Structure formats: structure tokens, C-alpha cells
């Protein structure tokens, strides 16, 4: 695994997530690029590297974020652990299904965590609009993940013994 490239990729993702995507807000939502990156690194590279990236990215995003601390770190680490477990169980991870399901599940889990932190604070819940926004975010995250996949594959080439470790 090319560690330097991984660090560069993680750094660029961090800046995109805190300084670029929240300002561009395609269709009014902030896509989750960090989730796509850690899922892809966990599936294409080493679980250990993905775990370090998930921790560092999650910690940085939690520090910058004004929401409850731990939502980013928890979701990203959980996504890496599930991806590593799926890989270890021998499921085919080379296609689109596994990363897509992981990104969708991660998006839903993270959104539910953000919403749950607002229970008791927010009186009005516009359910229709929130669900619409969640669906839009899922679609954008899938799109970003598919754009990111060739980049991750090119920068993090699998090496012998990379099956799990």
C-alpha cells in the first residue's frame, strides 16, 4: 500500500469535506466523501490502513464539526470494521454491490445519529423533506464513491497478503 498517497488522499478528502462540499452543497445537501473513501480503502487496500484513516479523518471532522463529538469517528470506524469483516468472510467485494450497500448503510446510520442528537431540541420534524434529503444524499454519496473508486484503486494497489490485514 502506498502510505504517502493514502495520506494525500485522506488530506484532500478532509479539506473537501470541511471547506468545499459544505459551501458547494450540490442540490442543497452535503455529500459524505469521507465515508466513500474509508469504505473503498477498507475494501481495496488494508483494513489497518483504512482504520487509521477512519480514525484520523473522523477525529478531524468531529473537531471541526459543531455537532456531537464522535458521530463522524464512530460511523467511519464502524464502516471500516464491517467492510473488513465482509472481506474476511470471503464475499466478493470487487463488484459494485458491497461498496454501494456499505455507503448507503453508512449514510443512513450517520443521518440517524445526527437526527437522534436533535431529539428533544427540535419541535418540528418535516418528515417528507428530511427523507427526501436523505435519499438525495444517498444518491450523491453513491455517485461520489463511484468517481472516487478508480482513484483509490490506482493509488492503493493491493499487495500480496492484503486479503485481510
Amino acid at each position, binding site marked *: 500500500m502506498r502510505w504517502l498517497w493514502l495520506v494525500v488522499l485522506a488530506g484532500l478528502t478532509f479539506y473537501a469535506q470541511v471547506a468545499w462540499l459544505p459551501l458547494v452543497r450540490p442540490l442543497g445537501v452535503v455529500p459524505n466523501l469521507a465515508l466513500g473513501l474509508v469504505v473503498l480503502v477498507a475494501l481495496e487496500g488494508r483494513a489497518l490502513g483504512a482504520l487509521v484513516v477512519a480514525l484520523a479523518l473522523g477525529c478531524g471532522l468531529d473537531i*471541526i464539526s459543531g455537532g456531537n463529538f464522535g458521530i463522524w469517528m464512530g460511523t467511519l470506524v464502524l464502516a471500516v470494521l464491517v467492510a473488513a469483516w465482509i472481506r474476511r468472510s470471503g464475499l466478493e467485494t470487487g463488484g459494485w454491490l458491497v461498496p454501494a450497500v456499505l455507503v448507503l448503510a453508512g449514510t443512513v446510520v450517520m443521518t440517524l445519529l445526527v437526527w437522534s442528537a436533535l431529539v428533544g431540541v427540535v419541535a418540528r420534524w418535516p418528515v417528507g423533506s428530511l427523507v427526501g434529503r436523505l435519499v438525495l444524499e444517498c444518491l450523491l454519496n453513491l455517485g461520489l464513491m463511484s468517481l472516487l473508486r478508480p482513484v483509490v484503486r490506482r493509488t492503493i494497489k493491493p499487495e500480496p497478503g492484503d486479503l485481510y490485514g
Partner: protein
Amino acid sequence: MNLTGTNRRIVTIIAVGGAVMVLGVLGRLGPLRWVYDATLAPLGRAVVGAGSTAGEALANLGRIKDLAADNARLEQENATLRQRLAADADTRRDNDLLRKQLGLEVAGAPKEVAAEVMSAQPDSYRQFVTINKGAQAGVAPGMAVVSQGQLIGVINDVQARSARITLVTDPTFKLTAKDQDTGATGLVGGQLGGGLLLDKIGQSDTVKPGDSVTTSGLGGVVPSGLYIGQIESVDTRANVVFQSARVATDVRVSELRFVFVVTGQ
């Protein structure tokens, strides 16, 4: 054997992550924030610049078809505001004169600290931005932040060189506000999914679409008279204790680049 070693490393990393999470929840990660402010934030500002430009370009693309209507509306609004400004100047002069004669303090221009937006909340539901001025520049929690003549939020967390602003559109934002035209007071707050709501308006009070909503100055550091937005629609159902009104605001995270923290009068 090899797998056991890897497993051990994974467990160690997760344990470190758990410890970091506990420290973060307890609010003990100030030094990490300081490292970010001192080293990584300047780079972030450059990225924010690019993000703002791209955000504005995307937003403008979507608004092209409304430009003619917007222009006509703004011209009319401009003429009305010019008339009001002329009338207000006379009122202000009279007010200052009377205050002097009565021995009351004459309100001066507010003291402001200019700041640049460094980063924004990385998710779709909460509304925070971080600026590059903190305690060293006299910024303190609770202070109002304005941009382009309107309140955009209040400071909620201050470090030495940076501060986080809770935007008025965040669902946890709450501030007492008043209808500038009728004097009706209420509690203005952000809505989950966007928008502002002026709530807890008494049933006997009058509020109507088009009225300006400003800060009331009650209960805190935020001075009175800061423009928040304009009433869009009013919910006046008789079977509820309070009236509420939707407030239109021009606060767009994508357009925030420079802001002013009101540090005093």
C-alpha cells in the same frame, strides 16, 4: 500468527480511538484544535475561497431564470428603503437630541471584529461555520455575528485563534426577536431542513407578512436592532396558545466568506 499480530494492532487502534472519543466528548481536545488552527486552517481558507466561488456559480446557474423578476423586486425595494432611510435619519437626529437633553446615553456604532470563514459544518443538517478570529481578538461566546447587514448567528465556542458560529438556520438556534413594525416579540429559531421560524408570539400581538424581524436585545450579549429577516407567512390558528411566523432570511452558507463579530457597542 500474522493475523493475530494484525488483530492486536486493530484492537490497539480501536482502543486509541475510544480514548480519543472519550476525551472529545469531555471537551479535552482543545490542543488538537489549536494545532489545526495554527497549521492546517490557512490552507482551509484557500479551499473555502474556491468553494465559495464554485458554490456561488452553481447557485447563480439555478437562479438565472428568476433574475428579471428579482431585479424588478429589488428596484422597488430599493426605492422604499431610500424613503425609509431618509425618514429614519431625521428620527435618529431627533432621538439623539432628546437623549442628550434628558441626560441619557447616546447609542454609538457597534464595535466589530472582521473575520474570515475557515470551514463549515460537514453535514447536511446542522449549520455551523468556523472563523479565523478567537479569544485573542476579543471574541467571546454569545456574541452576535453579522454579514451583509444581517444577523447570521452567534458565537458558541471560542479557541485562541478561532471561533465557531451557530448560524441562525441551525435547528438548535434560539434568540428573542421582535417585529420591528409592530413591536410584537417572539423566539426566533432555525428549522430542521432549513428556514427560520418566529415562535411564541402572543395571540393578541400583530404580525404580518413583509414585516422586518430584528433582535430584541433581551437576555444577553446580542444587541437590539440587528436585522434577522422578513416575515413570509403567519400561522394564526385560534386553537393554539401562540402564533408563529415563517421568516425569510438571506443567510446562505455557500455565500459566507467574511463576517463581523459584534464585540460591543
